[in-house]
C-alpha cells in the first residue's frame, strides 16, 4: 500500500537574497512559514509545486516540505525545516533576526 500523503508546503530559496521562502495560497511568496499555504491533497500539492517551479525569475530549488497544521499556520515536522525557518544556531542571524 502506498504511504499515506502527509501535508506539505512549497518552499524554495529567493533568487537574489537566497533566503528561505514559502508559497502562499495567492501564488505569492512569503518569508514567514505561518503565512504559507498548507497542502493537504497530494495531486494539488504536485500542481502547486509545478506552478512554483515556473517562477524561475524569483526562486531557486522549489520542493515540497512536510508540515502540520497548527493554531499558528503550518509548522515543520523535521528539524531541517525547523532550522530553515529559524536561522543558524551559532549566531542570531537569518530569519530569527528579522524585525529585531
Amino acid at each position, binding site marked *: 500500500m502506498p504511504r499515506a500523503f502527509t501535508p506539505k508546503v512549497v518552499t524554495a530559496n529567493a*533568487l*537574489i537574497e*537566497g533566503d528561505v521562502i514559502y508559497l502562499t495560497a495567492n501564488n505569492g511568496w512569503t518569508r514567514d512559514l505561518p503565512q504559507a499555504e498548507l497542502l493537504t491533497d497530494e495531486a494539488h500539492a504536485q500542481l502547486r509545486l509545478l506552478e512554483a517551479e515556473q517562477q*524561475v525569475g524569483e526562486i531557486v530549488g522549489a520542493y515540497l516540505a512536510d508540515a502540520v497544521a497548527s493554531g499558528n499556520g503550518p509548522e515543520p*515536522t*523535521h*528539524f531541517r525545516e525547523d532550522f530553515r525557518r529559524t536561522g543558524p544556531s551559532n549566531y542570531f542571524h537569518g530569519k530569527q533576526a528579522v524585525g529585531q
Partner: protein
Amino acid sequence: MYHYNDFDKAFLAERNRQFRAQVERRVAGNLTEDEFKPLRLMNGLYLQLHAYMLRVAIPYGTLSSAQMDKLALLADKWDKGYGHFTTRQNIQYNWPKLTDVPDMLDALGEVGMHAIQTSGNTIRNVTADHFAGAAADEIEDPRPLAELIRQWSTDHPEFQFMGRKFKIAVSGAAADRAVLKAHDLAVRIVKNDAGVVGYQVLVGGGLGRTPMIGKVLHDFLPRGDLLPFIEATVSVWNQIGRRDNKYKARIKITVHEHGLEDIRARVDERYAQIRPTFTGVDQALFADIQNHFAAPAFRNAPTVEFDSAYEANPLFRSWVDTNLAAHRIDGYAIVTVSLKKQGDTPGDATSEQMRTLAQIARDFGHDELRISHEQNVILPHVHKSDLPAVYAALRDVDLHAANIGLISDIIACPGMDYCALATARSIPVAQQIATRFDELKLEHDIGHLQIKISGCINACGHHHVGHIGILGLDRAGVENYQITLGGDATWDAAIGERAGPGFAYDEIVPAIERLVNGYLELRDSPAETFLAAYRRLGLAPFKAYLYPEAQDAKVRANAA
C-alpha cells in the same frame, strides 16, 4: 608570496567579467537555474540553507596582510562581518546576495584572489602544510610547487568536467601537517640517499562515505617529471573513473577497484605519451615562481623581552607552551593563532580580528599569514622578541586562546546550521564540548587530543581521522551522533573505528565527557596521549565508558 603577473590579472578580470554577465542574464530571466548553476559553482557560489555561500580559495593557505584586509572588507561590506575558514584552506562567506557576488569577486581580484574551482568536478584549491617555509623539519618550501599546480590546473581544458572533484595537497616536511593521505593525490617533497630532492606521489586517499588511506604511486620523481606525472594520473582517472555512480566516482574507488599496480601501469603508459609534450616551459615557470617565495630577511636579535615575559606572565607562558612551533631560524617562532576560543564557532573570524591579524603580520610577521586545515591562523615568521607584543595585540581581539592541539581545538564543518548537504548540526556540538572541558579545567591535563566533527557522511570535518571522530546523522528525523575512535591525520594515518550505537543531540557531550574521563583513568601516565592509550588498549575499555548501561547489563547477566 606569489604576485600575479599581467597574464594572471587579465585572466581573472576576464573570468569575473564573464561571471558578472552570467549573473545579469540569470536575473533578467535569460538563463534558467539549471543553466546557471554550473556557472555559479565554477565561481565558488553555492546556495545553502539560509542564503548563498561564496567559497574563496586561499591557495596553499598563504595570505598577505593586504589579502587578509580584503577578506575583512568583504565580510563588512557584503556579509555579516565575519568569515569561516574551512578544512581545505578556503574562506566561506555565508550571507552574500547573488547580485553582490560579482563585486566581491572584483574586490578579491584586486589582491590576486579568486573563487575559481572551489566547487564543481574540477581540481580544487591546492592545499599545503600550513608551516611551509618556516618549519624546522622542512626539506623544501612546498608552496612554489603548489603554485605551479594551481596555475597548471586552473582552467585546464582536460579537467573541467571530470567524474567528480579532485583534491591535491603538498608538503615538504618530515611531519605530515597537510593530511596528505586523505587526498586524491598528494605530493611529498623528499630527499634521496644521494641528497637529491625529488617527489613522492600518493594517490587514492579520501574521507567521505568510503574512507581510504592514500597509497604510494611513485616513490621518487625527479623535479622535471612531476607535472606530467600528475597530469597522467588525473588523465587516467578521468577516463576510467566511474561516472555511473557519484559515490564511486572518486579516484580512491578507481584505485581500489583496479588495484594500485593496474593504475600504476596505466599512469606509466599515459606518462610515456605526454612526457615529451612538457618541453621545459613548466620548469622555467617553476624557477620564476620560486623567486616569488624567497625567504624574508630574518633578523638576528636578542630575545630578552621574550625571556622576561615568559618568566613574569603565566598566561603568556601557557600560550607560548601551547601555541608555538619550532621555526627553522634561531630566535624565530611559528605562532598558531587559535580560532577556537572555547564556546566560539571553530574557524570563524570577525572582520576586526582579520584586520588585527593583518596588522600583526605587517608589524611583526614579515607580512605573512597562513590558514590551516585545522581552521586556525598561523603567523609563520615571528621573532621571539616580538612575541609579547603579538600576544598583547591578539588579546585585544580575543584571539589569545591557548589551546592548540587540545580538546577544544576542534575541527567542525558548518553542518546543518548552514550546509544544504548536512544531516545534523556540528557547530553547537563543538561549542558545547569546548565549553564543558573549559569549565572542568581539564584541558591541559588531558593533553593532545583531536576531536573532529562532521555534520554528514561527506566528512568535511575529517571525523574519520580524529582521535575522537563525531559524525552527525539524521536517524528517523532526529539528530544522532556516531563516535569513531583512534583516527589519525598524520603520516601514520588511520581511519577511526566506530565505537557503537550513536547518541542523541543532548547525549553526545556527556558521552564525550565519560569517554575522556575514562581515558584519564586508563592512561599509564600523563605523557600517554589519548591516541597512544587507544592504540595500546584497543576499543573495548573505552567502550565501557561510552556505554555504561551495556556494561551494567553485562554485569547483571554474569551475576544471574
